[in-house]
């Protein structure tokens, strides 16, 4: 504990008579943290990032090209939006590629626990990348977002596989149309 104000130097600078140097905007804590996250991003060989504006580290895309599993050969783009309350709040992640997947709906919402209810400030962008990659290797029909796809994966694995293939080549599964997304 210190005695902060000795009465001798009690007068503070008036506004405007601030010290020289002016007001230089500082980087926000979210910015400092995302810089660290990205500099240490350790991507698996199936993933890459794209920064539309290299000066804007808060908005970028992640591209996953799975090399095994149902989704082998596909190319899936996710958008990341990191808000000013990062890492208290997780980044907003959406899938921009239409995909027939039990845990991703047709609007691009992704059901991954660490993107919502299980997010912790100690997690990083890297954790999310691994989480998303895992979704393609092990789609989880227990937590469905696309219920049709989930039911099918549980009841008829072969049919599910065929439908995933058809969607990736471009075509209809049921009444939904999927754009071609093969590499």
């Amino acid at each position, binding site marked *: 504990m210190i005695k902060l104000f000795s009465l001798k130097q009690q007068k503070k600078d008036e506004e405007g008579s601030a010290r020289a*140097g002016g007001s230089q905007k500082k980087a926000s804590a979210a910015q400092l943290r995302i810089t660290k996250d990205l500099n240490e991003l350790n991507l698996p060989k199936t993933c890459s990032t794209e*920064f539309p504006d290299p000066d804007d580290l808060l908005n970028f895309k992640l591209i996953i090209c799975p090399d095994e599993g149902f989704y082998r050969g596909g190319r899936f783009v996710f958008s990341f939006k990191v808000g000013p309350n990062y890492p208290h709040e997780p980044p907003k992640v959406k899938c921009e590629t239409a995909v027939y997947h039990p845990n991703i709906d047709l609007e691009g919402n992704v059901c991954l626990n660490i993107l919502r209810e299980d997010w912790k400030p100690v997690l990083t962008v890297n954790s999310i990348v691994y989480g998303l990659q895992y979704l393609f290797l092990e789609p989880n029909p227990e*937590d469905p977002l696309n219920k049709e796809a989930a039911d099918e994966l549980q009841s008829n694995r072969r049919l599910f596989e065929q439908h995933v293939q058809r969607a990736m080549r471009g075509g209809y599964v049921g009444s939904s149309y999927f754009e071609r997304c093969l590499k």
Partner: protein
Amino acid sequence: MFIVVTTMDSGESQVSEYQNRRWMNIRKLLERSGPFCHPDFEPSAEILDFIMNSCKVLVVGAGGLGCELLKDLALMGFKKIHIVDMDTIELSNLNRQFLFRKNDIGLSKAKCAVEFVNKRIPGCEAVAHHCTIQSLDEGFYRQFHIIVCGLDSIVARRWLNGMLVSLLEYNDDRSLDQSSVIPMVDGGTEGFKGNARVILPGMSACIECTLDLYPPQKTYPLCTIANTPRLPEHCIEYVKVIQWAKENPWGSGTALDGDDPQHVAWVYEKAQERAMKHGIANVTYRLTQGVLKNIIPAVASTNAAIAAACATEVFKLASSCCVNMNNYMILNMADGVYTYTFSAEKRQDCIACSNTPHVMEIESNATLQVIYDKLCEDQGYMMKSPGITTVINGRNKTLYMSSIKSIEERTRDNLKKKVTEMGLYNGADILVADVTTPSTITIKLKLIENEDVEMSR
């Protein structure tokens, strides 16, 4: 509370008699010593004069806590109080934000609060700022001795914390210049729970040090709200997260606004439909509003208790009459009354307050490559693959980052450029992230004139 006594006696002695009685209790604290005083405390009449005429306090937020704080501080004798709030008064504020009346609805909270207090408390010279905290600059914040916050937003706290940390100045031996410290007293309430804390930026745990202590926002698993809703909240969340983006009732790109009654009504209606389909009861308009805006009902007595604790800490800081709380108090009135005070610890790797600026000397015509090489080779750094960014005119700029291929390709040419060509100057900060440091560090550039250039002139 004070009472103006009017009798038939002569006016002047009445005034001084009233002034005496008005400050009697405060003076007992400031003009006498005692066993609970701060060890360095020297009782004197000057302290009250400092509090009344010199000490400048900024109150951030003029809501539930802000009204209490402003009233408490003004009655304690603080006169030079500034208060900042961007909000306007709403009907639902009036049960606890007691400086506002029904006629004030729609007006600035900061202005109304100041007007009320200045009129009600003789001598008080509070000043209102009806704007966001972000629109006020360093010069503004630097004028205050103490800042006290009654905020409901973590983003705002983090911003203010960052501002106060950036005002810190360091001596040449990298020790903290204590005269640059502006203490921040922070209060927060949520229903029957609250906390009050004292932050000495650079010296004790700051907001970022304890960021993990904030409870995460209540969220539900996406698959539950999409497929197996059980609660009325699930139905509202579904409409908010999924249906809104799908149906875009106000055209695509219109974000859901919890303050827009039409938006809330739309969500309410859709949530009811969904609840009906799944046999869920109790979706109400109020609940819809609550879920959309994350409302936890505010309790007036919690605000009063937390604001009182904060105001007391401000008084202790200004007067040094007592040792401050160390440094984080929690209050829980949900079941009886419980409080506990503990010392939150400063994090060695705190992104804000552990980031004391390093200074790097380079020649004024040096290229970015020179900085990069120094970061990798100098004994003090020995970095592996530093990512270098900066802020120029308020905009973030990535100078070089080798770990991300697409950024590396587009910033590689910067290495050959002179630092001054990229907008850096003597005293500019660069931000460097590397695996060898626990968080991003700030380095202040010191440009020294190249002697060869000097001689050829």
